[in-house]
């Protein structure tokens, strides 16, 4: 178990976290995959909005760990140390 991680959610996902825009999560493994596994245990529908069943981040979902886009820092293997702030944001897409 690593230290607590703060997860910031966009408003559109808050209903899936009981209305919260901020969650404190304690992942078993200090990676983004570990964080999402921990998130799935308590908020399975929320986790499915971020990651598909094959384990991939959804194409138009951006995740930042302490301000860094995880697509450039290892993706699901990106380090998420205790005390990190993880922000989930929708990308610019749609019409």
């Amino acid at each position, binding site marked *: 178990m690593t230290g607590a991680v703060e997860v910031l959610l966009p408003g559109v996902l808050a209903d899936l976290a009981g209305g919260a825009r901020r969650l404190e999560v304690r992942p078993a493994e200090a990676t983004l995959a570990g964080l999402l596994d921990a998130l799935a245990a308590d908020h399975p529908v929320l986790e*499915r909005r971020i990651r*598909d069943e*094959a384990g*991939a981040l*959804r194409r138009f979902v951006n995740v930042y760990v302490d301000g860094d886009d995880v697509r450039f820092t290892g993706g699901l293997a990106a380090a998420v140390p205790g005390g990190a702030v993880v922000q989930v944001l929708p990308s610019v*897409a*749609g019409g």
Partner: protein
Amino acid sequence: MADLLAIGTRKGLWLAHSDDDRRTWTIDGPHLLSQEVAAVGVDVRGPVPRVLAGVQYGHWGPTVTWSDDLGRTWSETDEGAIRFPADTGAALARVWQLRPDTAERPGVVWAGCEPHSLWRSDDGGRTFTLVRGLWDHPHRPTWAPGSGGGAVHTVLPHPTGDRVLVAMSTGGVYVSDDGGEEWEPRNSGISAVFLPEPAPEYGQCVHKVAADAGDPDRFYAQNHFGVFRTDDAGGSWTSIAGGLPADFGFPVVTSPRTPGTAWVVPLVADAERVPPGGRLRVHRTRDAGATWTELGTGLPDGSWTAVLRDAVCVDEADPTGVHVGTRDGCVYASADEGDTFALVVGHLPDVLCVRAARLP
């Protein structure tokens, strides 16, 4: 007795209600606002009608959701109603079809999805199981995606037996006679103008298939060029496009009560996906495709839109209703088998699917 018309669009779901045998409609919506609703089903076999929707939550992925109170509240399964098993390495991209089975098989709902896959639910749509027989078919790696994506978009369970027919873009028609274990392609006679071989065993882009009311072995297919009929459950198909202004289009629907009766909505061609002359028209056959009658009362001229494969449906009323949704957000309803149409609603987002139900 009330009639319900569920209208799935690119940005939400609308429900049209009629209490006067489909003469006037009241529009309720939007439901599921900003979500693409590519598939909708209304299951009236249970104690309350269930509206099932295949949705794409914008950036946030696809799933199946349902409402047992006509749209007031929606539910979804925590783990996702449709979830590819880990060994497949696949992920659900879009739900293209939700098909409640017959009253003899309560609780059974079929789903056709992208990537090419067929799913069966035995609990009314809460959870689905991948039909492995089709997923593991050796042809599957060669089923190429059409421009909308590669999917099973049509599921036609036999009214009483174990046969299931599916249609795919691309891939064509496949039939299982044992409920989904074994599958074989049944495309003989269906053209494939986009392939070097004019009559391949499989690989066709069949846009939609509908079953005849009187003969469970008779089906009608709107193809990517060509309208066809089979009288032997897909063993061979023959053209019934003579008399139509164009043989391109997406939907085909059949009467649930009158044998030999079907409707199509022709478009000019794949490179010109608009009604011929800009006149939106439905064409009906009453003799299994030998002749066609153009139906246009209440439908617009100057209409440079298109009608997608699931944007036409029939209802269970008598006479049969035919309901048509367009990509420019209009829905036209007919309560007299297409003789006359009336605008139910306009200015919606692109209509992707419509389904009608007579509520108890």
